[in-house]
């Protein structure tokens, strides 16, 4: 007989609403289950949360610092706030930084209309960026037979790195450099097309929230991503 694991349940508040969750859930998990929308970009169901984009920052009453909801474990009696003026201001600033750090010309981008960065801008009401654009010079890697890596659109969410490592098991992607100069690279910063570890599965392309990773042959606004495989693979691996 298989012994059932004991599930510990915790009760707390999000924006004044009483919610309950399993002890191993994060604030974001419970918020999503309860239909409370917290803006997010690096989080992806089926991948480990790493708190990279900081968009999901929330306040915990009684704590000074802000924490990322996608990595914060829930605790009994805590009171989480997701829509304070301070948070709204920071979320805007985070998005402004993401837009200003690379080169985003939505009108000519493969992901126009299907882009999570665009959607987040809409959801926080961002219609312009106050921060000066950096306009970095970044080269597109078109060496792969089927895929394209355009770092001009990358927001360093790390999803490609995680899916390739955690799901495909190839670990082709990694991060190189620090801060604003960080880039995602394939193998040892070699061209994707000559990568010996890449299996060509395309998972990275489809989890990428922006137009940074795309399939070759698609034109402006045609790169709609397919992600149904993630929760499916996750359940196959027996991970909750």
């Amino acid at each position, binding site marked *: 007989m298989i012994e059932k694991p004991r599930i510990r349940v915790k009760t707390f508040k999000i924006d004044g609403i009483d919610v309950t969750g399993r002890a191993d859930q994060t604030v974001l998990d419970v918020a999503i289950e309860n239909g409370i929308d917290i803006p997010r970009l690096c989080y992806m169901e089926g991948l480990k949360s790493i708190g990279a984009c900081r968009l999901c920052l929330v306040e915990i009453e009684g704590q000074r610092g802000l924490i990322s909801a996608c990595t914060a474990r829930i605790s009994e009696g805590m009171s989480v706030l997701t829509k304070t003026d301070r948070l709204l201001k920071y979320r805007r600033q985070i998005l402004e930084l993401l*837009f200003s750090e690379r*080169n*985003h*010309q*939505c*009108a*000519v*981008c493969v992901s*126009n*209309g299907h882009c999570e960065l*665009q959607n987040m*801008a*809409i959801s926080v*009401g*961002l*219609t*312009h*960026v*106050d921060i*000066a*654009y950096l*306009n970095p*010079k970044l080269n597109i890697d078109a060496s792969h037979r089927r895929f394209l890596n355009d770092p001009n659109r990358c927001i360093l969410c790390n999803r490609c790195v995680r899916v390739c490592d955690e799901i495909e098991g190839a670990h082709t992607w990694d991060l190189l450099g620090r801060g604003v100069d960080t880039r995602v690279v394939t193998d040892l910063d070699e061209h994707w097309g000559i990568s010996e570890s890449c299996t060509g599965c395309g998972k990275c392309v489809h989890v990428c929230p922006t137009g940074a990773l795309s399939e070759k042959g698609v034109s402006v*606004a045609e790169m709609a991503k397919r992600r149904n495989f993630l929760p499916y693979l996750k359940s196959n691996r027996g991970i909750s």
Partner: protein
Amino acid sequence: MKTKLATLWLDGCSGCHMSFLDMDERLIELAQRIEVVSSPYVDFKYPDYFPDGIDVAIVEGSVSSEEDLHKIKLLRAKTKFLISLGDCAITGNVSGMRNLIEIPDMMDFVYNETADVNKGVMPTKVVPPLLKKVIPINQAVHVDLFIPGCPPPADAIYYALSELLNGNTPDMSKVTRFGK
């Protein structure tokens, strides 16, 4: 009294101005309440480029040349409420893509490498001196409202203008976005 409207075309493709015209029959309705005092649509000449006392100005395109910078500053000084219309005005967008290339390289590409006539002859008049970097309008002057889109849909422009005429503050993210 009618609201005095000016429109200005800086470094853009004129698509935003086309989209304004796409308001079609609603233009007739707007014309009851708006007087166009300066615009590529009309043929007015003023000694100081723009007339005084503009209520609303709509600007398409980014600030790319010294001439653009001069005009936008003039316009701002004479305008109560200034609108950035379209992604080039707001982000630099396609016009701003030249920021990834040095100016001499770009000039060489346009007037030499890809030129069919007068190959290699650099312009000495008409083409204004370029700014080192293309900038969005809000990096040059204060902007009161942003209407993103490439071009912004006519519906979004109509919504913005009619809300403003009725004394309301339009919420543009409800009707348009970057790249729309």
